[in-house]
């Protein structure tokens, strides 16, 4: 797996000029917007750069050779999720440091410390997103996965709006049975969301492994 991680590190550093452009955009964001936007941008960038390595692997029929190297299909799938986590985390840390510098200069270090905790929300959000995208890309390939992702996103939005409208149309005595979120302690809500997130990520990793183990090259 170490060899695969090194391969991916080399792959993401191939387009140095594009990287410099992205970093420039991040710095610009930090100037003109608040720290949240710039942190979100950089964290998301880390996730998408790691995701792009799948495209490099797939390009020019790369999979048959990669799978003939001393790696198993399972190890390959796990490495992709691990690499995403590492890169996303690294870019988040860089973003926080960048914001720290800007906020400390503009508003003082106390303001930065109070904001840092809230920046961490981006890690589970973007990692879940990338975790969902990886098995879709592994299953459908670079081209088809874009369409599948669009359909998937549309489906999720439809479920959300239909669910919301069903809850809204429930008789008041039935809707009273649903827990009022504002009454629950925020720590419980955060813990529940993180648990849900962990379950989604675990399912995505299991799907990626299953896809790779059953794929033919």
């Amino acid at each position, binding site marked *: 797996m*170490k*060899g695969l991680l*090194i*391969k991916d590190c*080399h*792959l993401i550093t*191939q387009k140095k000029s594009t990287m410099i452009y992205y970093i420039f955009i991040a710095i610009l964001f930090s100037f003109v917007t608040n720290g949240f936007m710039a942190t979100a941008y950089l964290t998301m960038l880390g996730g998408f750069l790691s995701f792009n390595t799948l495209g*490099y*692997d797939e*390009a*020019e*029929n*790369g*999979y*048959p*050779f990669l*799978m*003939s*190297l*001393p*790696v*198993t299909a399972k*190890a390959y799938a796990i490495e992709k999720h691990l690499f995403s986590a590492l890169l996303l985390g690294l870019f988040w840390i860089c973003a926080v440091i960048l914001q720290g510098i800007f906020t400390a200069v503009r508003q003082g270090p106390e303001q930065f410390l109070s904001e840092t905790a809230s920046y961490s929300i981006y890690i589970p959000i973007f990692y879940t997103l990338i975790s969902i995208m990886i098995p879709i890309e592994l299953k459908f390939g670079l081209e088809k996965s874009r369409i599948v992702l669009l359909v998937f996103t549309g489906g999720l939005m439809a479920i959300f709006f239909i669910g919301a409208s069903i809850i809204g149309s429930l008789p008041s005595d039935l809707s009273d049975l649903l827990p009022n979120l504002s009454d629950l302690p925020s720590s419980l809500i955060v813990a529940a969301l993180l648990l849900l997130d962990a379950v989604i990520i675990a399912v995505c990793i299991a799907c990626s492994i299953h896809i790779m183990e059953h794929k*033919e*090259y």
Partner: protein
Amino acid sequence: MIEIENLKKSYGDFTLDISLKVSDGSVTGLIGKNGAGKSTVMKAILGLIRPDSGTVSVLGKEARNLTAKDKEALGTALADSGFSQYLRAEEVIHILRNMYPAFDEEAFRRQCQKLELPLNKQIKEFSTGMRAKLRVLTAISHNAKLLILDEPTAGLDVLARNEILNMLRSYLEADPGRSILISSHISSDLEGLCDDLYMIDEGKLLLHEDTDRILGNYGILKLSESDYRRLDREHLIAAKKESFGYTCLTNEKQYYLDNYPGIIVENGSIDSVMLLLLGGKEE
């Protein structure tokens, strides 16, 4: 090293149906025209496809169950697949160093220099010959017991092909226990390297024979219509109608030389055998 028994794999109209064996310390060639099924055999050996039926055993294990550790003993060069072309040879060295405990970095760098492979150029900037050399060099760089080479010399000029064949000869000389399975549609490459040959067409095995026997015992008979009629055809494998009469393939050239002094008997070659087996009517 490799044992394939009754492997069957279908893709639409195409069905591969083959048995094959590569012994320890031997070089086995797989020859056939484009689309004959050579790459499918290679993929089955590497566990990249699931057979519909039959077994594929590599280094004593089912191909699909090879672990990462098992795969360290394999060296692979595939015709249309390799490391991302955005990588540089220097980066390939870094990757291989962390993938194969037995990777010989010093020898790899030495060979790169000898073969004029630039370390700091992206692979996409390499010529076809340079890419092929890098693929073979990667396969032989980590003390593999078995090389699986799919068309390693395809599309190369005679000099580049010779360099690659010399690399393979050096690899074999270093340890007599090493084996190679190599596919090619360039018969001359296989003639000088392989101990035995499997000739396949449309997924089926046409011939399995020792290379020395093909070159020593096989012959092409050029016969008139009347010669063909009076000839003992027991040792003919295939015959093809021509304008002058018949061209026949035999695996007992000496028998016809001894018993039919008037007929033309040419030495067999892989190309002539293949041409007659593919185009001739079996006797």
